[in-house]
Structure formats: C-alpha cells, structure tokens
C-alpha cells in the first residue's frame, strides 16, 4: 500500500527544484556550487504590447489614414511620441503609451511592442547543482534539516530562524513580534491572528511558520509581502510536536522558507511528495545524512501524523496494525492503525495517516 509522507528530518538530503514558470535559460551547470542569491535561471515574458486604434482616435477612416501616420512598421518610438496626427481645426494627435517598436499596422490600427524585463530565479538554498532541467531550471542539492509543510502563500525567503512562542499549541501574538525579528523566519506555533499578521508586516519579518492558518485569513495571507507556511493544515490545528521540536532545535540557523505550491483548485500530486510543496530547509555543512526512501512501508514503530480531525496535526508512533475493519463515528468501516500520540492511543484509518520520514 502506498502511504503519503512528509519529510520532517533533522539531517537529510535536501533537493530543491528551482523551475521557471515558462521556458527560459538555465544559468548554471551540473555540479556548480551555488549560493542562496545566485541566479540559476531566467526567462523573458512575452513582450508588452498595445493595439492602438489610430483611426478612431483621429476620427479618420482606416483607408484614408496613411497621410496622417508619422511612424512606419519597424520604427522605434519613445513613450508619448506622436504616432499620427491631424492638424487643422479640432486637430488631434495619437501618442505612444510606452516606449517600444511599431511592429504592425492595418485596418486603422498600429501594433506597438516593447520587450519585457527578464524574470530571474535564484538558488534559494546554498548547495550544489544536482541536475539541470534544460530550459526550465535546476535541482539544487544540499544536506540539512527539511520540514515539508502543507500550505503556503507562494512567496519565499532566506533568513535566520527565530521561535516566538513557547510551545506547539501556542498561537503567535502581536506583542511577541518586535524589531529584533526584522528579516527573520519566525516560528509561530499553532496559528496567528490578524493583529499578529499586521504586526509582522510592520516589523518586516522575513517569513512565518505556523501549524495551521485560518481559512478566512487566507486572502490577507496571500497579500503579505513575506512567505507564510502552514505545516499541518487549515483551520484550528496545532503545530505537530515533532515539527515544533525540530524547529526549536534549529533556532538561530539560516533557513530557506518556501511558500510555493501548486494551484489548490487542480488535482496536483506534488502535494504528496517531496517537491513543489511548501518547506523549511536549513542547510548544514554536513555532506551526508539519511536519504528518504519514498517507498518506506508502514510498520510497527513508524512515525506518523494524522491528517483529519479530531487528531489532525498530531504526530505519534504506530503501536499496532490490527486486521479487519473498524467502525468509525461516521458509520464507515475502514482498516485502521493504532497510534500512540504521546500517551493517548487511538485507532486512525490508514487513509488519514501519513508517514513522517
């Protein structure tokens, strides 16, 4: 049976896929050493353009327009330059809305184009280029701690990790956020409210890690200038103890925090595995560690995390794999596993568990 997994590991191989949203140019080679802010790939978006209806603006029929045109196809024009004009009483001028090149004309219209600025992608995690994805990006490999989250707001940062709460179940309070956290990746326990979020923006923190995010706060979280990553779910969810302990042990180290994730409205299997999920990566000088085996089976002693209420976010150890089916509160009968959540032993359906590797 395939069981989904999340990596929550203090020393493992970190593989970060740095992929452009559109085809472009890769700027590194395999086995290159790269630093956090080193560019690995770039692409140039399609040109900016405008179709200018000169005929309408000058009030001249398309067929009679040519005497009034002051530019021809191929001409470079500055912003505000006159493209066509009509003198006399009620004279009018048609101007370029931006600097560019006239690339087409016809039916009383001019087509103006201007090249776009290249969009660049940095390495984010210092390491070595393990693979080049031709025309798309590169896979950066490093060793260190890796924690995969479940939700992110699409942004990313590299900064020093700071823990601003005392426990995994505590939510982040505005009063805990001061100027000393500027640029830091702040660990916020179970959740954060709107007041804490605004204070975090005010203090210019680098990023935020919480256990769960309120669904109604999500639109605001998407607008935040810094990355926010939820490690365990949406709603009232505590941060998993295993994750909180690991993050606390990493306090003061530099971490890459990525809130990038696939579109939630489309089925995307990447949410199951080890790429394109939100993550916290803390690179270490070590050059080896455990390599996660994605086909790890569930056995007695496996570290697992519950994915649905009422145990969502709780991590524990498998203590029994009973045969047969168990009747759930909903009336469904499902195969279940007995898990010890730090003293409390409960039966959880296989479908609602993931391995912590």
């Amino acid at each position, binding site marked *: 049976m395939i069981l989904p997994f999340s990596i929550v590991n203090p020393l493992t191989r970190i593989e970060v896929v740095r992929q452009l949203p559109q085809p472009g140019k890769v700027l590194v080679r395999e086995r290159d050493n790269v630093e956090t802010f080193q560019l690995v790939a770039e692409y140039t978006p399609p040109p900016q353009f405008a179709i200018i209806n000169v005929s309408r603006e000058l009030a001249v029929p398309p067929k009679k327009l040519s005497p009034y045109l002051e530019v021809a196809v191929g001409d470079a024009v500055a912003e505000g330059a006159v493209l066509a004009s009509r003198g006399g009483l009620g004279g009018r001028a048609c101007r370029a809305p931006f600097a560019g090149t006239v690339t087409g004309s016809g039916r009383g219209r001019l087509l103006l184009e201007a090249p776009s600025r290249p969009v660049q992608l940095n390495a984010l995690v210092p390491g070595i280029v393990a693979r080049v994805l031709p025309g798309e990006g590169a896979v950066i490999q490093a060793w260190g701690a890796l924690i995969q989250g479940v939700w992110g707001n699409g942004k990313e940062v590299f900064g020093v990790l700071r823990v601003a709460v005392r426990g995994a179940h505590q939510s982040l309070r505005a009063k805990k956020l001061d100027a000393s956290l500027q640029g830091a990746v702040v660990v916020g326990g179970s959740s954060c409210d709107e007041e804490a979020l605004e204070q975090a923006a005010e203090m210019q923190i680098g990023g935020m890690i919480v256990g769960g995010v309120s669904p109604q706060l999500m639109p605001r979280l998407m607008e935040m200038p810094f990355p926010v990553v939820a490690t365990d779910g949406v709603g*009232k969810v505590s941060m998993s103890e295993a994750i909180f302990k690991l993050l606390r042990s990493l306090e003061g180290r530099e971490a890459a925090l990525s809130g990038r994730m696939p579109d*939630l409205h489309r*089925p995307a299997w990447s*949410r199951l595995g080890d*790429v394109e999920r939100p993550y916290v990566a803390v690179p270490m000088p070590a050059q080896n560690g455990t390599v996660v085996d994605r086909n790890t089976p569930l056995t007695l002693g496996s570290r697992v995390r519950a994915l649905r209420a009422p145990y969502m976010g709780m991590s524990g150890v498998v203590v029994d794999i009973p045969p047969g089916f168990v009747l759930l509160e909903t*009336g469904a009968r499902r195969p279940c596993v007995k898990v010890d959540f730090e003293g409390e032993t409960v039966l959880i359906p296989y479908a609602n568990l993931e391995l912590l590797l």
Partner: protein
Amino acid sequence: MTEEQTIESILVADCGAVNTNLLLLERVAESYRFVAQAETLTTAGAPWNDVSVGVVHAIWDLERITGRKFHANGKVIVPREGLTGVDAFVVILSAPEPLHVVLAGLVPEMSLESASHAVASIYASVEAVLCREGGLRSPEETWARTVRDLAPDVVLLVGGVDGGASRPVMELADAIALGASMLESDRRPRLIYAGNAKLRSQVTKLLGEIVTVDVVDNVRPTVDTEHLGPTQALLEQLYIEQRLYKLPGVDTLSVWSRLPLLPTATAFGRVVEYLWHREGRQERGVLGVDVGAASITIAACQHGELALSVHSQKGSVYGALALAEDEGVAALQQWLPEEMNAAQILAVLYNRALKPWTIPQQLPELWVEQAAVREMLRRAMREARTIWGGSQEDALPGFDPILVSGGSLVHMPRPGQILLALLDGLEPTGISTVLLDTNRAAPALGAIAGIKPLAAASALDAGTLVPLGTVISPVGKAHPGEGILQMRIIYEDGSTLAVEAHYGELELWPLLPGQRATLELRPNRRFDIGLGAPGHGGKVQVMGGLLGLVVDGRGRPLVLPENPEQRRHRLQRWLWDVGG
C-alpha cells in the same frame, strides 16, 4: 479462434485524479464476473511522477488477495498462462489535467453555446471566452492578451452560420494570431476552426504560419442546427494525444496494455449507452452520473443518442472549494443537517483539497463533504440539461435506470446517504431504478466493451451493479402531509401491502435486492409519476434494492425551508428516513 474469443481474463486499471482502481474480470462458468479489486493512490505526480507505480502497487495488492501472479519482470503478464497473468490489460484514465481551451466566437447564445457544448464532451476547462459582448474598449488587444497570457492548449474559433458573418470572425482570428505569435513556438495553442465554412481558407492562410490549424465542420451551420460531432471527435483526439499519452509513466502502461488508452468518461458513456439498448425502452432514457474529486461526468442516453458532459474541475473536492471561494459557503451550508459556520466549512474544504485521499472521521466533516457532492451535482446537472436541449430550470426528464458511480458518491458510509445525495442532486422525476456501481466497475466495463463486448455485457447482466432501490418521484405541488400517491405493492409471493405517500415526506417500503414486485399506482390528480399525465396511474413492475421502494414526495423542484433551524430539522429527518 480469434484473439477476441480467447479473452477470458481481463485486468482493468482505472487511474483517477486521486485513486487508482484495479479490477480483475474473469469468465466464471458461462458468464464474466469481477472477481477481485484493489485500490491505491494515483502516482502521476511527485514524488513518483509515474502513474504506473500506483498500478503496480495495486497489482501487488491484487496478487495478495487472489494468491496469483499478474506482474513479473517489470510488466503485466499478457497473455495468461494457466493461472498466471491475464489475457488483456486495459487502461482508462481521468488523472491528467483537463485540456485548457479558449473559446472564440460571435454570439454567446449561438455559436459559442454550441462550442461550449462540444468542449463539454471531454475533460476540458474553458479558460476564457473571447467575444465582443461586454463593451470592451479595445477587444482585439484584450483577446490577443488573453491568448498570450493563458497560452491555452487549444483555441476553438467558431462564429457565423455557413455563408454568414465574415469580418467579425476574421477580427477574432487576427487577434488570436497576434496573441499566439508572441508565444514561444512550443507554447502556441492548436487552433480548431469550426465556424463559417466560407472563411476556412482565409482563416487557414492567416493563422497557418503561426499555429497548427484544424478545420472541421461548423458547429452551428444554421441558426437552428447544431453539429458537434467532428469538433467533439477532434477535441477528444487532442485530449488523448496531449494529455492521456503525456501523463508521466503512461508509456509504461501503454506498452503493457498494447490497447489504446481511453478517457474514463468515454468508457462510462459506453456503459450508459449499453444500458439503454439493454432496457430497450424508446420512451425512457438512461442516466449515468460519476462524481469524483476532480470532475463530474453525466452521461444521458435518450432515443439512442448519448450526450456526454464532463464537468472538469467541478468535482466534489476541487470544484466545491472553488465554489466556496467564489460565492461563499451559503450554497453548501444549506445542505448541512448541523449548524456549522463558514470557517469550519472552509477548513474542511481546504484540508480535503490538500489531502484528497483522506476520509472524514467525524460527522460534521462528513456532512460538509456530502453537501459538496449535492451542490456540485446540482450545478453539473443544470449545465448538462442545456446540452440536452433544455433549459437549466427544466425538470429532469424521466430516466430509468439511473447509474451511480464515482468515489465521492459510492464511498459514502451508508446506502441511504448515497440515495439522498442523489435525489437532492438530481431531483429525478417519475419512476427510476437506481443502480450503484459499488466497485467502480462501470467505466472499466465500458473499456472492456471495446475489446470483448460479450464480457462487458455479461458482467453487467451478472449483477456487477448493485440495485439501490426503485424511486418514485411524483411531480406536483400540495400541502405538507397531503396524500399524493396511493400504492398497492404486490410481492412475488402474492402478499400485498397498500400504502399512501404524503407530500413533503421521503418514505421507504421493503423490497429486498433480487425481489420484484408489481405496483398499482394511483397518484393524486395533480401529480405526475411519468405514466402519461398528472393523475395517471397504472401497473408497473419494479425491482428491489438495498433501500427497497422509495417514494420521494418532496415535490419538484425541491424547495428547502428558508429558516435555517427548520431546514436543518428537515434535513435531519430525511436522513433519518433513509437510514443515513
């Protein structure tokens, strides 16, 4: 002996967006039956990036269940040798992303409507519609920008009846050409031209150097006629080429199978078509609904014509989340038998979208998921009705049987919950037998029909579909509690039961699976039960099922009480009535 005749054992892999279902069909005595099933996660995405991994895991489960060997040396063993391997391996898929389509046309109620009907027959998402409606100041620029920014897989250009409008169609073509020309050549869309036949050469000349142009018959050759076949066939071919065969790992499955891969919706449609022919009743259609996490497929066969509508990204998980984000949670909240606030509902929807393979462990979460099925099914039905030529508000025509498939429905914990979600989602009318595809075998059988029709027919006839019950849904209005239908149930053993159904109630009477009964029906004169006209009754033969005989006396259209407390009370009572 031909190859078709020697096929006695067939393995079908149905790779859905969330789960991969593996079914083993074998000849047992004189008929074919499903003998084993295994289900696992679909592995088309990271970290596996290989859909065949999930299939192999499911095969291992199947080997454990049956004690036989189906996979060796990295492939499925075909043909069978004794009890090892199978005679044929069939693959159907709904796991790939839908085809991204931009529609371009002139009149929303005419050619664009026909274009959207054509697109609805495949797994596709309409990303944008380009037309002059909406008072755009610079439509060409907007259209070109849309094509450039969305970089769709396909632009379907329609417009103008044959010999009709030219200039507006060419303006659209111009803008599409401009937008496409700004994209790298490998990101440019394919253009399907299905508009005014007179403009074919002009469109091809203008766009042919920029994109690949396919010209097919006009979807709206005259004002009153719709001609979708060629466009639908081409779109399906493109979906198969650009999505099915490009899914990571599908090449491995293709080598193992050596049979063409098939979209699940197409396979499902074939079964519905078969059921219509089997029933052999010209006046009654057959309806199939397949509700999944990512999409809903509705297949209706009426007068021998199959209308297939695939509602991509409008399934019970991803579709419901998008609905709640766009419109708020009220549409879902109205179906909840317990009070839940917006934050609680949204949290369930988000967590389900993040982990779509999980199941609810608590009742409130179950209610949210079932509310999502009801509401998404209702919306899909409204859209489907326009494809059948009706309006969104029309009552559903009489269908018998109604086939229910898809994980979101069949995985509900209790049969009563499935039936109630179906009744609320479809609002059927008249008399319908409801067949439940508990093992999700229907699409598999549709695929098998392509290689061994006898096996598919035999398995369907041999009880692959579980009868949920016979539902009588009188159409009309009355006061709550008023008698609307008198019924005498004459069982096979000669015993009889005389009962009356009341307005506003859901009532169940016993009729076990495998049993048949004759019903003498006498509806109230204002109620139509599909036997000709309001008040018309008669004798009908019906079959039993898990829930027996059900009269849905809640009227059509189904109206829920506006008062939230009264509504929840009513929903709880209906759930109680059907044993949910």
